[in-house]
């Protein structure tokens, strides 16, 4: 299984996969010029995820600022996770958001609603 690791920059999130704990974490700002560079490797990672060897996958989303195009790419990823879930993968999704960021909470709720995946929402205080 390919690993996935992207360092955080001012406009791009950090993406880390902890293979031991089976946690994929995305955190930071996401308003890049080219979203595909950030999100396509995650799509490939999910497409290649071997369900026969791995039955669990945990996700941690901890965005600060996310733009509309990143939202669409993220929605594609969430729908892919829902598909893997329907094929037997056990998933947990933790959605952290700034306690003052109603927009980010709302986005998480929408993503949970469109995918029928339960998200655990956790407000974060700076």
């Amino acid at each position: 299984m390919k690993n996935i690791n992207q360092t955080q920059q001012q406009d791009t999130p950090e993406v880390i996969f902890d293979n031991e704990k089976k946690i994929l974490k995305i955190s930071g700002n996401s308003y890049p010029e080219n979203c595909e560079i950030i999100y396509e490797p995650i799509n490939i990672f999910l497409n290649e995820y071997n369900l026969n060897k791995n039955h669990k996958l945990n996700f941690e989303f901890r965005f600060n600022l996310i733009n509309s195009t990143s939202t669409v790419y993220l929605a594609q990823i969430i729908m892919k996770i829902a598909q893997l879930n329907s094929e037997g993968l056990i998933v947990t999704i933790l959605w952290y958001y700034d306690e003052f960021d109603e927009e980010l909470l709302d986005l998480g709720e929408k993503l949970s609603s469109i995918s029928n995946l339960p998200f655990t929402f956790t407000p974060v205080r700076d």
Partner: protein
Amino acid sequence: MDPIHRHICETTILSEYDIVKKDIHENGDIVCQYIGTFTQNILISFVSLLENYMNESIASHVIQKRLTYLVVETIQNIIHHSYKHPDNSQLAYIIISKNKIGYTINTSNAIETIIAPNLIDKVEYLLKTKKTRLPELFRKKIANPEINDNGLGNLGLLTIVSKSDKNFNYKISTMTSKYSLFHIEINLNYK
């Protein structure tokens, strides 16, 4: 864009920029502004500048966040949809201002007049949609997430109109036979 069209367009944008700034000075203060070519590096710098300003602002954190989201979307709207010269330069501006009621974002950029009718249709559709229906429209779009050939999600305008609670005004005015000025004004009340 030939030199005559370019001169007319740049003069029009500069003139409007001065008028908007003069209007702001009568009722409030400029928080930050930029005029010139918009790039991703300009966006990063602008967001950083705005976040530093926000650390000292008395506006609620909810409004501060919403303003930052709106600034990202409006600048990326200019980056991706404004007319650019073959050398990728452009003349566009953004001004963030504040007064007793709230923040205002003004942006202007050149567009090819040929795309104006389609743009008007899109904006008018969003403005005619009830405020309470906009989140559902957004939800439907992300339920069928599609990326266009340019790698964009086509949700920028919907996001701007929705996050501004429809406190969104726009104007498209002809500058030359081929080019128009697309002006946006977004108001974000403190409460």
